[in-house]
């Protein structure tokens, strides 16, 4: 038993060391393509670290969104980058040293704070206890989903609005030239992978009620399907061809979330206060539509924003 613990300890140290090295290499590399590759690998290792910290939900999200979709977005950006030049870091030594000193100060401050809290952190973990105590009344049995969709639903609602702002922000930056080359390999892959991804999204969404999973992970899987379709040459990436339907899909998650919240307020329950007996169904409804919105938003982010007239 002790030997096993020791081995895990060595593995953990190794993971942390690799994580740090990857981060440094990604930042310091002067070649953009290599930086991005390193960043994607960094995301995957980070997912492993989350798994080791017994946070499977975050590990899933990190792998799917941080490494997977983030990587796809970075690659798409690189493809559109016409300059193809190496990065021009501020070469002035004063700037470099200044930034270095600031980062050192920051790191010291955080380390200082953390060391002072480490001895007592076990005792102060009150919040976890509160979540467990109230879990039975939340409508779901997985604590992370209970926090995201019930206890701290207001955060999640605003996060969905952040996604909406981001997708408009991409369009605000300008039009994207759609210069995709259809790749035969992808169309072969899409035939059997897309249905599988959609099925998996449905499972991950449903599983979120009692085990790791939920709307964000499911949405990321749907977006994976969308991106695959786009790469396989489907110009709409499986999204509706009617533009107003696309926009309706984008706001569906936030909209239903908000309307449920306000409806409960009007009904005398209080904003976002689900009645215990029906909490499960409200949460499921919100999560389903949020999955659709998240999947569409992320797919559109890859495509360069909401399609407009004569733009795409």
């Amino acid at each position, binding site marked *: 038993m002790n030997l096993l613990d020791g081995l895990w300890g060595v593995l953990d140290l190794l993971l942390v060391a690799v994580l740090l090295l990857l981060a440094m290499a990604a930042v310091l590399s002067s070649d953009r393509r290599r930086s991005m590759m390193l960043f994607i690998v960094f995301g995957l290792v980070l997912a492993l670290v989350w798994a080791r910290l017994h946070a499977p939900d975050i590990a899933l999200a990190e792998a799917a969104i941080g490494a997977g979709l983030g990587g796809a977005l970075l690659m798409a950006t690189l493809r559109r980058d016409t300059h193809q030049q190496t990065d021009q870091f501020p070469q002035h030594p004063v700037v470099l040293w200044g930034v270095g000193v600031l980062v050192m100060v*920051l790191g010291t*401050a*955080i380390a*200082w*704070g*953390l*060391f*002072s*809290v480490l001895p*007592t*952190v076990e005792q*102060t*973990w*009150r*919040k*976890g206890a*509160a*979540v467990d105590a*109230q879990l039975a009344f939340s409508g779901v049995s997985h604590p992370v989903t209970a926090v995201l969709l*019930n*206890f*701290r*639903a*207001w*955060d999640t609602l*605003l*996060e969905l*609005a*952040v996604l*909406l*702002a*981001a997708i*408009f*922000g991409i*369009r*605000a*930056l*300008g039009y994207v030239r759609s210069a995709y080359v259809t790749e035969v390999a992808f169309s072969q892959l899409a035939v059997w992978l897309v249905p599988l991804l959609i099925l998996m999204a449905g499972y991950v969404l449903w599983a979120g009620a009692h085990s790791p999973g939920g709307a964000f992970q499911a949405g990321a899987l749907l977006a994976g399907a969308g991106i695959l379709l786009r790469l396989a040459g489907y110009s709409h990436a499986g999204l509706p061809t009617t533009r*107003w339907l696309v*926009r*309706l899909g*984008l*706001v569906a998650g*936030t*909209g239903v979330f*908000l309307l449920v*919240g*306000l409806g409960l*307020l*009007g009904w005398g*329950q*209080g*904003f*976002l*206060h*689900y009645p215990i007996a029906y909490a499960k169904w409200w949460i499921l409804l919100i999560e389903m539509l949020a999955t659709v919105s998240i999947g569409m938003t992320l797919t559109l982010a890859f495509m360069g924003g909401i399609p*407009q007239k004569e733009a795409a």
Partner: protein
Amino acid sequence: MNEAASVVWVISLPLLGALLATVWRQYAATIGWVSSALTAGCAVWLLWVVQRAGVQELALGGWEIGLGISLYADGLAAVMVLMSSLVVLGCSVYARHYFRAQRQHELFWPLWLLLATALNALFLAGDLFNVYVTLELLGISASALTALGAKRAALRAALRYLVVGLLGSMLYLMAITLLYAAYGTLNAVQIAEALQVDPLGWAALLLMLAGLALKMALFPLHFWLPPAHSNAPAPVSAALSALVVKAAFYLVVRLWFEVFAPLTTPLLANALGALGAMAVLWGSWSALRAERLKLLAAYSSVAQLGYLVMFFPLLAVLEGEARQWLFGAMVLFALSHAFAKSALFLAAGILLQYAGHDRIRELSGTTQALPLTTFVIALAGIALVGLPPSGAFLGKWYLLDAAFKTGQWWWVLVLVAGSLLATAYVFRLLGHAFGHLPAVKRPVVAATQEIPALALALLATFGLGLGAMSLWSWLAHTGTGAGL
């Protein structure tokens, strides 16, 4: 419907508007100004509720506070929400006829209403992590709106704004992580009760201050503000300068006086005040040297935020009644700047549309062509210099008084120098605007553009100057629920 519902509606209405404006693009402008008007109505309702029934605390979802998120409305929060809603309403009416390109029009309204949502949600958040989420929504919608300026400079400024905003949020998030690890709650009041003077508290305070100083463009972290605020479309510039930086300032006030109260020593307050003083001098000097009106207005914001921070060292040493009045004066100054600066940016937008440029040297004949717009600029100038009757005058006067009372005479020097520089840049601007040109044609300006600008300028001067006493007294005595 119960009274606490007003807290929910001031956030939900603009969000609902944003969603509707996304789906029904053709009615986006109507949806935009109607929901802004309704939000402003609810903000008045909220202020009335807080004034009559005291602090409103709403545990969302019915969960105990700490497990769930709370919305928290005291006098300060309610006044901030009203300020933000009124400025947003003025800009919404103005924006209906401002955008010419279809693309800008379609993107503006959803983003604009999301910005309004984020502002009100931030002012009312009682939970420090929820504040982080609102900061994200605010930062992303604000930088996206900046990018609507369409020129290349606007895109560059918007991207820099985005990155700076993310950096600020990241610093703030690190501080929250530390606090949560130590105290196991994210609720502001609970953290304030549990807070101890230890390295963790110091680290958290410094991280939060650094992040928010970046977001409120406190000298020397103001480098991103002038390009972003001067290249955005007029209604966006107005909101950025009047409200978005003010939101970061509001958080600093909350954290400084309520959450981290045991840690805020006079030494730290003086360090902040010194940065504020430098911001006043540098911002005013740069405004005087600015070639363009919008750049002048942007640099003037750097200076005005400096004044707000200069209240801190004086609040740190004053006690009792005098301190409460000074606190009220600070809020009054912030309100006055919000209305004056938004009016100035809206007026600058009208000028830009009429003349095609905003180069200060070439503004001769403006008075003949656009008398009402020039009047707005003059009124806004009065409030920026701090002449009576304006809220800024009361704020500055009380700051001066406090500096003499506490014997910290050096702030007086900064105040005088800053005010003289402000007088110089306002009169330089008006001097050029009043220049006479023979045979100037009167352009057709939509009343929907000039009237909101005028209304905001009047609020900053006569509204907050002559009608300030009851508001000031109320803010001083019941401003914050924590009883300062």
